């Protein structure tokens, strides 16, 4: 039987009726139409479904919608400011860290949470933080560079 839950998604409060078996990934994609969150494996292996729950990078395929009642969710759609991309997104574009793009939403969100915690991570710290987000295209090098570039951009923006 469906139940009504309330949660905040990208700053907007919403009420959705969902079945207990609904995962957060399904809620976002099928009930809210936020298809930026990808479902690759559904079993926690790939990280394509990563979203931030109260700022913590989480596998939305392994979290039931019921479990995020009252919580604050950030998906990739919530990052840009209108048409202006977030500096970290810009960095991914400029550095060439996106090929097919399937892993990108998860990569960006995981990296964003890392930079919140640790604004100037070392390469080893970046690789460790991203180790649950798989990419079949880029070979990771460009992604690591994009996170470094993103870190620089965010610092610059803070200063100005």
């Amino acid at each position, binding site marked *: *039987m469906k139940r009504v839950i309330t949660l905040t998604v990208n700053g907007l409060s919403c009420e959705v009726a969902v*079945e*207990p*078996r*609904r*995962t957060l990934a*399904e809620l976002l994609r099928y009930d809210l139409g936020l298809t930026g969150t990808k479902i690759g494996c*559904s*079993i*926690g*292996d790939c*990280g394509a479904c*990563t979203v931030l729950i109260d700022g*913590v*990078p*989480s*596998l939305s*395929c*392994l*979290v*039931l919608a*019921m*479990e995020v009642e009252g919580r604050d969710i950030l998906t990739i759609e919530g990052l840009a400011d209108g048409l202006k991309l977030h500096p970290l997104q810009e960095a991914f574009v400029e550095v060439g860290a996106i090929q097919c793009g399937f892993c990108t939403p998860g990569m960006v969100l*995981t990296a964003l949470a890392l930079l919140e915690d640790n604004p100037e991570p070392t390469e080893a710290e970046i690789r*460790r*933080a991203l*180790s*649950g*987000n798989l990419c079949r295209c880029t070979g990771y090098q460009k992604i690591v560079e994009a996170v470094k570039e993103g870190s620089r951009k965010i610092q610059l923006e803070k200063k100005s």
Partner: protein
Amino acid sequence: MILPRFDYYAPTGLDEALSWLAEHHGSGVKILGGGTDLLVDVRGKIIPDQHRPRCQEHRDGPWLARYAPTESIEILLALSRITELRGIAVEVNCVRIGAMTTITDLERSPVVRTRLAGLWDGARQLGSPLVRNRGTYGGNLCNARPAADTAIPTLALGGRLVLASIRGERTVDHSDFVTGPGETILEPDEILKEVVFDLANDPAMGSAYLKLSNRKALEIAVVSAAAMVTFNSPPAEQGGIKGGVTKSARIALGAVAPTPLLVPEAGEALVGKELDSQSISEAARIAAGVARPITDHRGGDEYRRMMVEVLVRRVLMSCWERALAGTVEEAA
């Protein structure tokens, strides 16, 4: 592929959860921690042909084999809203870790890093950061896999599990908790509440956990080993590894038996001796002799047994180094 249908109940207090469980336990009721094991197991599996030849149990069968879920659920009792189950409390003589404490919480806890370093090693090596953010300590222990990355150090560190039900609480050693792969002594109306570690006032102690796997992240151990060593007097550096008489030692192995395996013989062999290369090699040989690994797609039994010897040697060195330094660097 959507999940099979089930119902969901999320109480906010432990007492509420226990009374509910006392009334409803039985077939189809499952406890939900972080869900990183359970929500994987409720899905069916599809194993394409290319994976089958390495995987003995699936060698025959159709080209694209489908497997029914290993768990079937009617209702989930979710523990995520019970705040009293999450957190690490340091008391005078012990540390208490709530079952719903996440693996990331363990990894970030200063007391786990300094006083329960082996558990810190295990937390850092479990799955990936995303799995650790959600997966819980209690879930890793109750799932009871022989290679569970926090279970092996918990066993070596002498962790005691507090099991709660409406009938009261009982405390059991981790060594008595797991009875087989995926099986524990938990009664159907019981919940794992917390794990307690005594903080002994020894002059020096060290603990460590090492996992052998093919990749740095997202890998189940081929074999793993944990140890805790306490010393009668602080160990001293005297040309390589020498100095420090062992007061007690506990050695535990992962992925070499149907359950996490404590090897008391190996630990006892060190008691009263200098922890030097000779005594370490001896203990490692004993541990390798007791291990009963199987052959599967992760490794052969003979290889695993050889690696047990290597890993035990290395964790013991690590214990010694940590006891000497009084600080904790990543075990290697």
